[in-house]
Each structure stands twice: as structure tokens, then as C-alpha cells.
């Protein structure tokens, strides 16, 4: 009888059709890029705690390393000039600067590299100061071992890096104001007076539902209604329904219905002035139309239905889309003098945005490999700014596309994709996996022999740049020692952590894995740390189901200024792991 199926689960061979696909992706043996290593002595900070000559000697033995220089202060002006010369004279393809933390100097060295013809992703930093010599204040041997390991990790990362693209786009020189009242009219008139054509969307002709307690406000409103009618640069749309908003920030495309017609327009900025709703005297509620506006323009609503900006502390009145502003009674019920003030402030901001004339992005933006996308839409809900949409492809399946103006570069979608068709340049999967492998593999020893493996217990910390990595740096600066077996893998956001990284680490010999993230609502990208926490929980459950103690995998939240907390938590983890048998024996014991 012809079999209809074969089993997929369990430790059985990968099914034939999957084998074929994997062969497609066999690594082609490319020559490793020529890498130069600059060891920073940092005056005596590093050189006084570490045998820099020995380090230089041992690094020269690595095959990919083309040259190893030592520099007292590579960050100085002539240090950087020497770096550029070294790149050009030796035709280096990659540079690793082993010195202080990338959080201090990465952009600077990347700029130097660019001046010498390299791209930002070709330069990497190996943190051997805060992450190594400061941690092993009095133990030069341990510092040397750890420094070698950190540098080997950096070289592995540089082996497979991809590069960010630069995106630019012009900003449409027009504005849309939705909502009337003092706020909306003032904004519309201000922008129009500055030569920006304004489309003003009003619910009703006249201002029957607006009556302020103060006479001057009502007088002002009356004159404004007349002015708005007459201004040559203002076009009014009364009683229209906006049905869709798409397109990039700075060139938003709005589709709206006017009676039977469907029209669309492009606009550079959108000002949501909104209308308050005086249900009873003195009691204002959010107008019901705000629900629709909130979903169309991707603006959050508070529990009363008013619109508000995502980061009120850090970026007041800036929303997900650059160029979308909410103020006035759409934002909260306020007195008319406050409405006037807000309108002027927001008009000023809108004008400043418009006058930039172009939007540019040069930090990494997620890219889609269209031919691999399966249209499964798992990435869509993970994006904090709704930058992903599915569009019709050539065949049956839809394909994802990323709106770069909204992409924050957190990488949450990259992890959610089941086929790896989304990539975040400079935070790609392969280099990160290679870094993990290098952290746990035996160091290259003399004469091609294997050197030491990382000391037990081997802990891999996936450190979010904003929380755990910053805390680790601070622990180092404050000379707080932590376990020698700890290796830090820097991530742009904890959302970039994929469970496969933890599995890879365990397979390579890690005893424990720690994911360090921002706490609660502090995630720089909005919700990344929450996803990271859920992924860790799920993986812990999977580990349990496969007979592995889930306590080997931890999720911890850190504040970037809590160095002591970081040192304490990894030391506690190391202490716990040192009392447990190695991972490999565990399953044998548990049967």
C-alpha cells in the first residue's frame, strides 16, 4: 500500500523535501574576509591589566586575521587617522577594535571606517575593557583568556555581516487638518499663512457644537470660521468620511468618501485637532469619531478614548508616523487659551517637519526576501508601529512588505518569521549564531591545537543594549567581578532574541542561558521585552517537555543603571549552575 505520510516528530530524519530545501542553502565556501584587529591599550587601563603583547601574538595566529595593531588611544584623532591608513594600505575588509564598550565608541569608529571606504557593518567593537579587564582586576591570566574569547566572538560576527541600506524620500508639501474649533482653525490658518496648502476636514458646517464659556473665544471662533472660508490655501471638506490611510510617513495617502465619490489625496503632515463632546455641562468626553481616526492613523487611545502620543515623556506630541500630530480636544479637553497655544506649537512642529523636505533613514531597517515569504502574517502583529503589510504576490501567496519610514529596527518580526525571510542588517541570524558558537567553542591554541574552552559554568547572556548590556558595562566600570564563564551577546533589543539562539547555545555546550531585557514598559521599541519574556517562557515549557531543567534558561529584567544588580544576578545564576550536573548528563540521569 502506498504510504500517505511519514512521521515528522521525534529525533527522526528530516523529511526528504526539507532535505532538498536545506541543500539549497548549503554554505558556499567563501573565503573569510580579511580582518584587522586593533587592540586598544587605553593608556594603562587595558595595558596595565592585560598582557597586550601576548594577546597580539596569539591573535596573529588566527587564519582570518590579516593584521593586529596595538594603539594607546585609537579613539584619538591620530589614532583614527592611523586606522584609516591601515585599512587602506592593507586592503582590510573588516576591522575589529578591541577596547572599550561599543556603547561609547561604535558610531565614531564606524564613521572612521566609512571615511576609509568601509561600510558601518564592517566595523565591530570587542568590549575588552568594561567587559573584561575591569571585571578581572587582579587576574591577568583570566583577563587574557576572556579577552581572546571576546575577540574571537567579534571576528566570528564579522565573518557574516550584512549591510544596512540608506533610504530617502521627499516630504509632500501639504497638510491635512482634521477637526475644527479653535485648535483646528488656528492650525489650518497658521499653516496656510506659511504657504502650505491645507485640506481641512470638518464634521459640520459652522460651529454649532462649540460654545466656549469665554466671550473672546466665541468671538475668535466666529472670525476664524470666516477666515477659513476665504483663505485661498485652505480647502474645506465637510461631512466626508476617511476610509483608508496608507503610504509612507511624509507622503501619507488618504482615501475619503464625499457623498458618492471616492477621492484620495497625498499629504505631508496630518494634524488631528478633533472635536470635544460636551455631554453635559462641564463634562467632556472623547468624540466617537476618534475611534476611527485612532485606527486609521495608528494613534493610541487612552481609557477615555482620547488620542495620546506613545512616549509622552520622551517625545511629546510625536506619534508613530512622523508628521502625524494630535492636539486640542482630540488629545484632552482644555480651555480655549490652551487650545490656541497647542495649535501654534503643533503648527510650528509641523512646519519644521515639512521644511526638512526629505526623510532619510540610515540606521538598519528590516528587509524582506520576497521570494521566500509565505504570506503567513505572523510578523504583522509583532510590529510595534504596524510597518508591515501583506500585498498580493505573483502567485497564490501574499508577500510582506515593510514601510521603512515606520520601521524602528527592533527585529521582533525577524524572530516571528517561520521561514527566515525577514532580516535586520547588522543583526542577522548567521553572524549571531557564529558568535554564540565562538563563545563556547575551544579557543584556537598554539600550533593549530585546541586551546581552552570557556570556564564552567558556561553562561551565555543575551543582553539587550539598553538594559542588560548597559548594566554589564556599569558593573565593569565599578569593578564588580562576575563569573568568568559568562559571555555577553549584544542585541539591539531583547525582541531580537530567538529561542533557536538558546537551543544553539545549549547544543554548543552552554550550561545556562540568560536573556536580559528592559522591564515592564521601558522597552525602547515599545513591546519588545514583553515578547522576549513570552518566548523565554514558551521555551522553558518546551525544555521541560523534553526532559531538560527549565531553570537553565532565565529571563531577567534590568535597568541600564543597575550594574550591581547585573553582577549579582549572573553570579547567583553561575553559583546555581555550578551545583548542577552538566547539561549532557542530565538526560541520562532523568532517563
Amino acid at each position, binding site marked *: 500500500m502506498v504510504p500517505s505520510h511519514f512521521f515528522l516528530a521525534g*529525533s527522526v530524519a528530516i523529511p526528504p523535501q526539507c532535505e532538498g530545501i536545506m541543500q539549497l542553502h548549503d554554505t558556499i565556501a567563501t573565503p573569510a574576509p580579511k580582518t584587522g584587529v586593533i587592540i586598544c591599550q587605553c593608556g594603562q587601563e587595558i595595558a596595565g591589566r592585560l598582557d597586550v603583547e601576548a594577546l597580539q601574538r596569539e591573535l596573529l595566529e588566527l587564519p582570518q586575521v590579516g593584521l593586529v595593531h596595538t594603539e594607546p588611544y585609537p579613539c584619538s584623532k591620530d589614532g583614527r587617522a592611523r586606522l584609516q591608513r591601515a585599512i587602506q594600505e592593507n586592503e582590510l575588509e573588516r576591522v575589529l577594535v578591541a577596547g572599550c564598550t561599543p556603547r561609547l565608541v561604535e558610531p565614531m569608529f564606524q564613521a572612521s571606517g566609512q571615511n576609509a571606504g568601509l561600510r558601518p557593518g564592517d566595523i565591530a567593537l570587542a568590549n575588552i575593557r568594561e567587559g573584561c579587564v575591569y571585571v578581572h582586576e587582579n587576574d591577568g591570566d583570566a583577563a587574557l583568556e576572556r579577552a581572546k574569547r571576546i575577540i574571537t566572538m567579534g571576528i566570528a560576527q564579522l565573518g557574516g555581516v550584512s549591510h544596512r541600506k540608506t533610504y530617502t524620500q521627499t516630504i509632500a508639501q501639504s497638510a491635512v487638518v482634521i477637526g475644527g474649533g479653535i485648535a483646528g482653525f488656528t492650525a489650518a490658518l497658521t499653516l496656510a499663512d506659511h504657504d502650505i496648502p491645507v485640506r481641512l476636514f470638518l464634521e459640520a458646517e459652522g460651529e454649532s457644537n462649540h460654545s466656549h464659556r469665554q466671550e473672546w473665544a466665541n468671538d475668535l471662533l466666529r472670525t476664524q470660521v470666516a477666515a477659513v472660508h476665504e483663505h485661498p490655501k485652505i480647502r474645506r471638506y465637510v461631512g466626508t468620511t476617511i476610509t483608508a490611510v496608507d503610504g509612507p510617513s511624509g507622503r501619507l495617502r488618504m482615501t475619503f468618501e464625499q457623498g458618492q465619490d471616492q477621492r484620495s489625496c497625498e499629504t505631508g503632515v496630518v494634524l488631528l485637532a478633533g472635536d470635544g463632546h460636551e455631554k453635559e455641562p462641564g463634562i467632556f468626553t472623547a468624540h466617537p469619531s476618534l475611534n476611527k481616526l485612532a485606527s486609521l492613523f495608528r494613534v493610541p487611545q487612552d481609557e477615555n478614548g482620547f488620542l495620546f502620543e506613545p512616549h509622552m515623556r520622551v517625545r511629546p506630541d510625536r506619534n508613530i508616523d512622523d508628521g502625524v500630530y494630535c492636539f486640542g480636544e482630540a488629545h484632552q479637553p482644555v480651555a480655549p487659551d490652551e487650545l490656541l497655544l497647542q495649535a501654534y506649537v503643533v503648527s510650528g512642529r509641523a512646519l519644521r517637519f515639512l521644511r526638512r523636505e526629505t526623510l532619510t533613514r540610515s540606521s538598519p531597517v528590516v528587509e524582506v526576501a520576497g521570494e521566500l515569504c509565505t504570506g503567513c502574517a505572523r510578523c504583522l502583529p509583532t510590529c510595534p508601529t504596524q510597518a508591515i503589510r501583506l500585498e498580493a504576490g505573483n502567485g497564490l501567496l501574499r508577500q510582506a512588505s515593510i514601510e521603512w519610514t515606520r520601521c524602528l529596527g527592533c527585529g521582533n518580526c525577524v524572530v516571528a518569521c517561520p*521561514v527566515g525571510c525577514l532580516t535586520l542588517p547588522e543583526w542577522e541570524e548567521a553572524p549571531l549564531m557564529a558568535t554564540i558558537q565562538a563563545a563556547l567553542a575551544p579557543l584556537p591554541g598554539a600550533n593549530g591545537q585546541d586551546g581552552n574552552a570557556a570556564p564552567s559554568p558556561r553562561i551565555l547572556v543575551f543582553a539587550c543594549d539598553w538594559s542588560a548590556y548597559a548594566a554589564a558595562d556599569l558593573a565593569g566600570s565599578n569593578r564588580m567581578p562576575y563569573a568568568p564563564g559568562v559571555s555577553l551577546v549584544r542585541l539591539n533589543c531583547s525582541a531580537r532574541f530567538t529561542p533557536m539562539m538558546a537551543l544553539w547555545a545549549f547544543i554548543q555546550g552552554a550550561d545556562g542561558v540568560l536573556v536580559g531585557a528592559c522591564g515592564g514598559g521601558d522597552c525602547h521599541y515599545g513591546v519588545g521585552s514583553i515578547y522576549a519574556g513570552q518566548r523565554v517562557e514558551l521555551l522553558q515549557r518546551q525544555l521541560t517537555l523534553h526532559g531538560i531543567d527549565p531553570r537553565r534558561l532565565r529571563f531577567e529584567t534590568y535597568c541600564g543603571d543597575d550594574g550591581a544588580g547585573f553582577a549579582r544576578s549572573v553570579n547567583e545564576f553561575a553559583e546555581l549552575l555550578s551545583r548542577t550536573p552538566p547539561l549532557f548528563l542530565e538526560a541520562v540521569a532523568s532517563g
Partner: protein
Amino acid sequence: MSIQLEADVWTVDNCAGCGLCVAACSKQVLAWNGDQHPIREERIKHLGYTKVVLDSCTFCEQVCAEVCPRLVEWIPQPAQVTLRARAVGPMASGQPNAIVRSLIAAGLSAGLLDGAIILDIDPWSLQPVARIVTSVPEVAATVGLQYLWAPLLEALNEAIFVRGLRDLAIAATPCAAQAVRRLQESNSARLRPYQEAIKLTIALFCTGIYQEELVEELLVTQSGIPKAHVRRLEMSAGDGALEVTLWDGEVRKIPSPQVSGYMRSGCGSCTDYCGESADLAVGTSGSDQDLSTLIIRTRTGDIFARNAQRMRLLETSEMGSDPSLAAAVTEKRRRQRAQAYHAVRILSLDALADPAGRNEAIEKFSRLYRMPRSPRAGQVVLDGCTGC
């Protein structure tokens, strides 16, 4: 037992949502709670002041794992005949759901079927439901599958054990047909009533269906359309937009980008776009407005198709060559990639417990993730442990 389902299907986001495990569970301890996969019921025993969580799922004949379509890799049933088709007679239409209705109505009229389970939209709640129909007027009243998800096969228990139906047709998505195909191949005595009762499977072409929350969230909250105003909900097959027909005649369309975000995550790894495990498959891929594509894959399917033609409820014609059906074949590879990643993940989890499998896992992992070759790749350091 359901531990295997949890480890290999639920926690890796691979559940199709067919509902057969929930229906077949010998102790009825599986249920849906709003997640994308069933959960095991938790029973708590109180002993004095302590609470013990009982494992409600314990050793049984593992019927849930016997029937889960996601635990196996399917070999497609080739198409015997591919035709252009149209429903004719009182419910004339070229739409796939009309053809499904014709096939079932004809089967009921000829006595080949005594009932059918169809995915339908409840006109009151606007939620997708599994509808059991036993007469032609009931068939005519259904809207059919609108690519909104409900676990169809859960209705089997009511159909078979409560209503006593013995000749059932199942009309749903390809995953339900896969589940039934798995069911038919089982030797378990407990599953025999199901095996004997299901006579026909019809699958609609599908690349993924949407969660039912989208009705509440997109329709009511965002678009402000109260449910009472809605006469009909339909997913327009071509562009994936949700078409809403109101009682006053107005037709509104909620565009695809908003709808896409609600796709069930378990659909992402399914490569069966054209109902390859069903007796009959119907869809609009590769046909124009007034006709659909009908694929007959088995002798049973052939019998029912001919029956519908004899009853003058179905008209078929020759099918020319078709590029989108060809696309369905080539695009299978994309979702198979998802299965490769899934397989490596399971392999890696298993390798943690099995030192011998570790090197194989490392090798496959390196290839799939395209890691640059390192001289030390594939070697694992064991601190004195020989893995013996």
C-alpha cells in the same frame, strides 16, 4: 497523548485548528479557550489546605495524536480530473461555496448522505460556526466557509452520537480533510464510529484563514458597523478583503491589509493549498468569475460529482492549462521551508537529551542558518563526559 501534541504542535505554533483531537479525545479533556490551539483541562484537587493540579490527560490510547494532521508530512493525492465547474439549478452560481452546496444537496437528495458539517457564518452573532445540515433547505441557507476560523470537526460528536448521522460529508479547509484522512488510516477501535460515519470530504482552496476576532475588532469597533445591520459577511477570495453587505443594501469593503493581521499563525506552515487530502477540492484559483475549479482526487469524489451532475445541480467543462494551479505547486516549497526550520527546532530539542544526536543537529542547524564554516564547527566540548 496530548503531551506530544503540546510539544510538537501547540508550542511551535503549528496547530491547524481542525478540532479533531478535541472531538476524539477519549476523556473529553481538551477544549478551546481563545488561544490558537486547544488546551488541556486543568483539574485541581484540594487536600486540606493544599491544592494539587491533576494531570487530566493520562495514558490512554492516544487518539489525539493518532488523528492530528500536523504530526505527519503529507504525500498529496494527485488530481484525477481537474474541471471548470458551476452550480446550476435553483442556486445557480459560479462561486466555490455554491458548488459545495450543490454537491451536498445532491448527495442528500440521492440518499448518499444523511448529513453534512459545513463551516458557516451565524447570521445573528456573525461568528464562524460548524453547522450540521441534514436537509436541502438547510444547505441552501448556509453561506459556507468564509475563511474565518472555527474548529469544524468538534461538531462530529454531536452529529454522530447525538443526531445519529451515519453518512456525513465534511466541507471545510484542507486541514480538516487531512485530519479525516489520518482518521481513516487509524486502527484504533475508539475511532471506528468516526471512520464509519464520514463518507466524503470536500476542501476549499486555502492559503490561510482568519481568526474570528476580526469581526468584532474591525467591523464593530473600528468601522462602527453594528452587527445587527449586517446582512452578509463574505471574504472576497481574490484579494482577501472582507465584504460586508448591510440590510439597507450598502456594501462596504474592509481592505486586505487590515484583515491580513488576523491570520491564524498555525496556517503558516501548511503547504496544502488545493485540498490534496480531500475527495473533492474547489476553489477560484485559475478560473474566471462565473466558474470555479473542481479537482476530483478519489473515486468517492468522482461518484459524488457525477451524482450532482445527474441531478442537474452541477455543470462541468474542460479545464485548460492553468498558471495559478502551477503556482500552487511551486509555492509549496516556501512553506516547506517553514517545516524545515520546525524540524531543526525539534531536532535541536531532542538533541539536548541525546548526546549522540547532537552532532547531527549541529550540522543541520549550520546548513539551515547558513553559517560560515568554522574549523571547529561540529565539535562539542564535553567536560569529561563521554555520553556513554
